[in-house]
């Protein structure tokens, strides 16, 4: 296992953020899709997700979704995806039943922002606040859009739009927009060829604005399931953080003490490339760092480089440096 320190993402954010040229037709279609999603009050559909990562076979899960504005949801899937059995939001709490033995719960975002598993089920997430940025609700202003054309899939005609972005790592996403103007299929790709990873999601049997009641979203985890407190296994609050000196990808080293010096708060994040929630964190860390760095905030991102083949080519190297 090789470890490297990857920079606080900040470099990527602060350097050369400029709006990309846009494709008018693509943008018009995406605007219509957004209007259709925001305008729909309820959505029921069958969901299929699949994903392919380097060295692993294609994996699939399938199930059903029911969604109601502003933040009610029930997503049930079965198959290869072992992190999700049921996602249920009753409007106040989002329960994520990972498997029949464990669940986590969190306060439901008022606009459904945390109805977000699997992360790449963009047609589901788009119903609430999600933009076409795979990394979160906020649009990626630097992404390039392109109208690909019409495509007939399984007897249905779709208009296809491609969105290519670099933040926080290079990706290409394609969206199939149906005649109803809803995003019905999505593909998110990282890298290419043998090293590439792709994540697909599709909705079929879509029914919009069927009548649904709030009470139909009531949920309690099964009696077999226990709250899953993974954080309990981490080092306890109050303990001094262990010292470390680690190599940086540019050939230097970095020590925790040096990063911390003069800082009021230091965030240490452990991540790896093919970890979807790790990716979703980046934009948040980026914006926190941009906002707080002048007040003594540092970010150290420690990458577990156990699958070098999937490491993005353009990973940038660490914060910590005070330059």
């Amino acid at each position: 296992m090789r470890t490297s320190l990857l920079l606080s993402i900040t470099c990527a954010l602060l350097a050369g953020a400029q709006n990309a040229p846009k494709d008018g037709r693509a943008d018009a279609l995406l605007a219509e899709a957004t209007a259709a999603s925001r305008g729909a009050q309820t959505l029921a559909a069958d969901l299929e997700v699949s994903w392919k990562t380097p060295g692993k076979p294609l994996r699939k899960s399938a199930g059903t979704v029911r969604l109601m504005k502003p933040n009610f949801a029930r997503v049930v899937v079965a198959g290869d995806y072992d992190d999700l059995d049921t996602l249920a939001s009753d409007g106040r709490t989002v329960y994520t039943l990972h498997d029949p033995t464990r669940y986590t719960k969190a306060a439901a975002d008022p606009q459904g922002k945390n109805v977000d598993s699997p992360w790449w089920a963009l047609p589901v997430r788009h119903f609430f606040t999600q933009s076409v940025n795979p990394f979160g609700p906020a649009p990626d202003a630097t992404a390039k859009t392109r109208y690909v054309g019409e495509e007939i899939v399984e007897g249905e005609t779709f208009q296809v739009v491609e969105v290519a972005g670099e933040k926080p790592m290079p990706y290409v996403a394609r969206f199939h927009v149906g005649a109803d103007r809803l995003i019905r299929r999505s593909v998110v790709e990282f890298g290419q060829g043998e090293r590439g990873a792709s994540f697909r999601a599709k909705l079929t049997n879509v029914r919009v604005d069927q009548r649904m009641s709030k009470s139909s979203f009531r949920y309690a985890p099964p009696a077999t399931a226990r709250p899953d407190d993974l954080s309990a296994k981490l080092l306890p609050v109050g303990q001094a953080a262990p010292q470390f000196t680690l190599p940086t990808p540019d050939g230097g080293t970095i020590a925790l003490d040096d990063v911390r010096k003069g800082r009021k708060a230091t965030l240490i994040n452990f991540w790896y490339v093919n970890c979807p929630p790790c990716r979703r964190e980046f934009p948040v860390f980026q914006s926190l760092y941009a906002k707080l760095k002048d007040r003594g905030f540092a970010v150290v991102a420690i990458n577990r480089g156990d699958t070098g083949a999937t490491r993005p080519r353009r990973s940038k190297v660490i914060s910590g440096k005070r330059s």
Partner: protein
Amino acid sequence: MGGGDGSDIFARYSVGVFPATYLLDAEGRIVYRSAGFNEASLRRALSKLGMN
């Protein structure tokens, strides 16, 4: 610890699942930890350090 390649850092920080995040105060003490991504609780922890 020495330079090394740091491959034991995950063990020393008890990181078994990803992502894992720690927040340290000015003295280097752990004031917050999280396995998985929890934006709201991270922001609360930052607020307690005067970062909001």
